[in-house]
């Protein structure tokens, strides 16, 4: 698109008398701006000489004349005209000379100043008082009050950036283009302003406006627009790259995500409308039930929850059994890794988003240096945020190896890691790409293992997930339990999920892709704060697989409670986002995925649900025994015999098995010293539930907010350890 010019669309219908003067005045106006320009006349099949006049003018001025092809009405003329414009700034003006074309000069200045849409504002009228009054009343009630826009929306003269129009879909009736355009531009986060003008009386021709019917048409549209669903709009890429600068506009905000991932598979909207209604309805029914029949309502709720718990016990048992009996991790023979022909290795890109993590940068560079991959074929991209001055200063002051590039991610919302990764992906040169967090210490052989594995798995495997664990597991009790949890997740549960070929929520780092595959997957959802979980689910839904490789990346376990809760609440919030995104069309989801749809309920939805409900069930259990004489009878009432049996089974065996799985995880990872701490898990589960409630609160209040986890709390002890000590678990 050529942005260096202005295209003005002039819709005409029997305007032969005023067209010449209009074109002349427009020519004068744009000559003053020094901009290239064009005038596009769209004639709505005039009965007079409008077309002939226009064609004559075309000899003199940069005028192009077209006969309208579509339905009658001004709006259609405008749309056809816009479609034929060639410049980046587009405007339109009625041909009746009631709007002063000279005002385009001031409007153009506003565009240059940064506004996206400039509309004329009729402050002085030469029209009859009745018409003026009606216009003002309409503007006040239907534009200001209904839509909150302080503009003269129906003014027939506007100037705007062409991409404003490209972000929206419009299907206006003859007189409803203007308001819809402004409302949608505003909703898309565009900057709007107005330029005061005098609205003159018509000099020639007749007005086409039928005051009453046109007004009614516009009013109806105003109301419809107010209550229509505000769908997110796609922000197109800037042009140099298919995703650079792309994003989503929603609720008056512009999010530059550097991906063209469609909004319907993104968490930009937390809930689909029916989900909101469903949730509200659920709460309302529950509340009503509690008033009308409290016992019955609670009994039904308890029965439902118990059934889910009961099924989950068996699902997890099945996963763990599969994981233990047929471990699916891709094992790579030592000799293969050691004898790999380095000359034939492709470029491997490493994306490392850093935000306020200056302290960990030296450690990361050390870890990367230790990677067994020819450095000239390494493409390490450090993704720094434009506003993170401290990390920027450290990174720019640090002597960086030739294979490391600093890439500054331009400031934009949402400020999330996946957004930065999408940006980094644009610049990744490698045939393969992996994400590492800045505090990561990957197994030095990991890239070779992944490369080898990619060569030996089918094309349906789009992602290889390395196992994650922690290097500071012995720092305190929290890190011990956190490590046990990671060992369970990565060494037992993920492998179990892989065994049954179901959806795998990826770990935040150390996921390897073929770069082209990742591009075709549209990268990450920048709105999802657990983007890895979402990407794993998306991979599965689109018919691909994730495999786990037998390689470990060590990370820094959160060692401070508040920091831990922040991190966990973000993860859980992301799980909820993922759940609601992929459950927007539940029937379709079930049709496409069969029983895996049920697995998804347990793996993603159930995981959070249990975290939220667990404290209630524990309280009930403790209450039952501690205050037996007061509470036992009531609690027993809530659990009919069958439900009681299932609940008791889930309580005893479910909790025990969960607890035991942690031990199995530690055992698989050979973390024998952590085994005894697993007995303290109930405390850990409790704080997980606290994080769960924070997650729900945040999901409702600030769904895209990225709770930053502070790393680098273990920098000194880490530096005291040699890389060899840290990665002693790694074997080629």
């Amino acid at each position, binding site marked *: 698109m050529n942005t260096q010019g202005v295209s003005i669309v002039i819709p005409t219908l029997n305007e032969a008398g005023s067209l010449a003067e209009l074109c002349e005045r427009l020519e004068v106006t744009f000559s003053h701006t020094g901009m290239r320009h064009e005038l596009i006349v769209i004639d709505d099949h005039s009965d007079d000489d409008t077309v002939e006049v226009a064609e004559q003018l075309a000899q003199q001025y940069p005028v192009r004349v077209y006969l309208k092809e579509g339905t009658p009405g001004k709006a259609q003329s405008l749309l056809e005209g816009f479609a034929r414009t060639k410049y980046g700034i587009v405007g339109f003006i009625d041909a009746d000379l009631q709007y002063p074309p000279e005002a385009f000069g001031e409007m153009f200045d506003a565009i240059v100043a940064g506004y996206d849409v400039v509309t004329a504002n009729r402050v002085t009228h030469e029209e009859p008082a009745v018409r003026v009054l009606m216009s003002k009343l309409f503007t006040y009630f239907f534009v200001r009050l209904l839509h909150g826009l302080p503009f003269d929306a129906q003014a027939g003269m506007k100037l705007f950036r062409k991409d404003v129009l490209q972000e929206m879909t419009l299907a206006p009736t003859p007189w409803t283009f203007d308001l819809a355009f402004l409302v949608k531009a505003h909703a898309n986060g565009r900057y709007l302003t107005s330029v005061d003008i005098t609205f003159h009386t018509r000099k020639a021709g007749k007005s086409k406006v039928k005051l009453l019917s046109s007004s009614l048409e516009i009013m109806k549209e105003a109301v419809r627009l107010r209550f229509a669903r505000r769908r997110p709009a796609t922000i197109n890429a800037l042009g140099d790259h298919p995703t650079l600068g792309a994003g989503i506009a929603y609720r008056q905000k512009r999010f530059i995500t550097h991906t063209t991932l469609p909004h319907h598979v993104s968490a930009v909207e937390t809930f689909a409308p029916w989900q909101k209604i469903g949730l509200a309805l659920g709460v309302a029914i529950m509340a009503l039930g509690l008033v009308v029949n409290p016992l019955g309502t609670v009994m039904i709720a308890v029965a439902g929850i118990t059934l889910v718990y009961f099924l989950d016990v068996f699902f997890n048992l099945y996963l763990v059994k599969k994981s*233990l009996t047929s471990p699916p991790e891709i094992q790579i023979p030592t000799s293969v890794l050691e004898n790999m022909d380095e000359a034939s290795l492709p470029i491997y890109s490493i994306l490392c988003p850093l935000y306020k993590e200056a302290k960990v940068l030296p450690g990361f560079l050390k870890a990367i240096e230790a990677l067994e991959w020819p450095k000239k074929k390494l493409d390490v991209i450090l993704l720094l945020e434009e506003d993170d001055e401290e990390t920027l200063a450290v990174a720019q002051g640090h002597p960086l190896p030739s294979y490391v590039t600093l890439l500054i991610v331009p400031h934009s919302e949402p400020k999330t890691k996946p957004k930065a990764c999408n940006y980094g992906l644009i610049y990744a040169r490698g045939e393969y790409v992996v994400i590492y967090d800045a505090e990561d210490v990957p197994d030095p052989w990991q890239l070779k293992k992944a490369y080898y594995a990619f060569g030996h798995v089918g094309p349906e495997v789009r992602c290889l997930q390395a196992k994650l664990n922690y290097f500071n597991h012995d720092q305190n009790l929290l890190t011990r339990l956190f490590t046990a949890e990671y060992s369970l997740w990565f060494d037992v549960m993920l492998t179990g999920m892989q065994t049954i070929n179901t959806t795998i929520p990826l770990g935040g780092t150390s996921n390897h892709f073929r770069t082209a595959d990742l591009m075709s997957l549209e990268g990450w959802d920048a709105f999802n704060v657990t983007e890895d979980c979402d990407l794993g689910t998306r991979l599965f839904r689109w018919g691909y697989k994730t495999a786990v490789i037998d390689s470990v990346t060590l990370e820094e376990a959160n060692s401070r409670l508040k920091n831990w809760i922040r991190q966990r609440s973000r993860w859980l919030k992301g799980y909820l986002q993922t759940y609601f995104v992929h459950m927007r069309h539940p029937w379709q989801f079930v049709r496409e995925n069969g029983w895996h749809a049920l697995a998804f309920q347990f793996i993603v939805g159930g995981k959070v649900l249990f975290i939220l409900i667990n404290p209630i069930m524990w309280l009930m259990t403790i209450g039952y025994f501690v205050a037996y004489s007061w509470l036992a009878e009531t609690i027993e009432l809530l659990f009919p015999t069958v439900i009681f049996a299932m609940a008791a089974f889930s309580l005893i065996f479910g909790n025990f098995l969960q*607890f035991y799985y942690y031990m*199995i995880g*530690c*055992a698989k990872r050979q973390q*024998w*010293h952590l085994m005894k701490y697993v007995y303290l898990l109930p405390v850990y589960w409790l704080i997980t539930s606290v994080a769960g409630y924070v997650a729900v609160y945040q999901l409702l209040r600030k769904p895209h907010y990225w709770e930053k986890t502070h790393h680098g709390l273990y920098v000194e002890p880490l530096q005291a350890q040699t890389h060899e000590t840290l990665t002693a678990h790694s074997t080629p």
Partner: protein
Amino acid sequence: MKHSLPIPLHNMRLPLLIAVLTAVSVISFIYYGSSGLALVYNDARSHLNIGRRVVEGLTPGLPQIGSVWLPLTHFLMIGTIWNDFMWHSGLAGAIQSMIAFVATGGIIYLYLREIGVGVLSRLVAVSLFVLNVNVLYLQSTAMTELMLLLTMTMGAYRLLRWFKSDSLIYLIGAAFWVMLSTLVRYDGWFLCVFSTTLVFGYTWWVKNYREGEGKAILFFTLAGFGIFLWLLWNWLIFKDPLYFAFGPYSAHTQQSQLESAGILATKHNLWFSIKVYVYAMAYNIGVVPLVAGAVGALLLWFNKRFSPAIRIASVSLLAPLLFNIIALFLGHSVLFIEGLSGQSWFNVRYGIMMMPSIAIFVGYGLHVLPRVIKMPAAAGVITVALFALLYQEGVTILDAKYGSSQKNVSQVSAWLHAHVPDQEGLVLISAASHDAIIFSSGLPMKRFIHEGTGDWWRQATQTPDHWARWIVMRTYSEEDSTYRLIKDTPGLQYYTKVQAYPFADVYELKPQYLPRMSQKIAQGVQ
């Protein structure tokens, strides 16, 4: 024409063995069932009754499981015990013993295969187990011994595989089977501690303390989960986690009574405890297999060609031996050998617990014999076993028929069977003392008010005349809780002693007081 590949014979050995074991099991059950021996153990009938009470009675439900006996076998009965035939034939309880018998035979075979023993020796070992009259008898009854043998042997087998491979799945598997054994008999509790010690000690020795500790915790957490559940269950049902150990019907109480009577001779006498248990083994297993097994065990442990892992793993097979000796020594168990201690065979069946272990040791011993004498030795072992089977009455049957393990309840139960079915009203009886009567009466469980019926029992022992038409109790015996509780109640005077038997007496409410009985009892619950 299609040709299917013949299945190699060695792949068919185990299925064939299982088929033969199954046939032997069924024939054995039919034999003992038809000869009226399947239910002579008083305990067998009580086990069946416990299972039945879960599904039928005045207050059915899982809380009926509990008290002294561990719950797994009762729990496993739930699927079949509702059927009157399965209950009264004893099949509901025997069927699990039969399955355990077949599986244990298979495990003996697999255990020996795992340590490289040849087919002949494996089959001889299994034969030794299968041809043992006491094993065959116990597998045909609703007793718990066979289930214990299965769970313990399976635990030992899985442990062996773990010792050999260091694979986590086997360690967890071993823990699981040990956990099941802890829910069958208290012998399993010892195995739990013993095998945890083995896991810990061995790992510490070959790896390091940390790993030893970790693996021991991993093992014990699962293996001991059954114990935890049992304590929890006792706490929930009886409000005392140690009710099973110190409650009124516990072994502890029983042993205290024996001790006060001066017949708990093994207590604090290690030598005598060993002697009694060795005799019990000899009576159950046979002297020749026992000696051969001891030799086999020594050969196994001193065979340097075997890795220490296998030799240490096989130590777990000794758990029943150690448990029983320690239990006798500490006075936690009682076992009589006629002529040696006591004048009966009470609990002599405990000697059978070492049967699978002895079979395995014999199998190994045979395996290492020189080829020249292997066949004659195998033939000799089989001959001795067959001879014992054909010409000796099992000591467990003696215990059941004549020892303290049986009680002559037939007179009382026959009376109930003749008088109660066609009349309205309930029978007040202590299940702890007279479960065999309940079983043999042929009446449905819901005709009895016993300790497990909660409020029914509480009310009936306060005002029996309002609740029970008949009372069965051992008059003047304080051990009989019915007598102990109602002896001073005014209601007792409204009853007539209609029958007095050596074992217990039957009382019936006088006709003029029948209207006192609750309408609900008179009509509803029947």
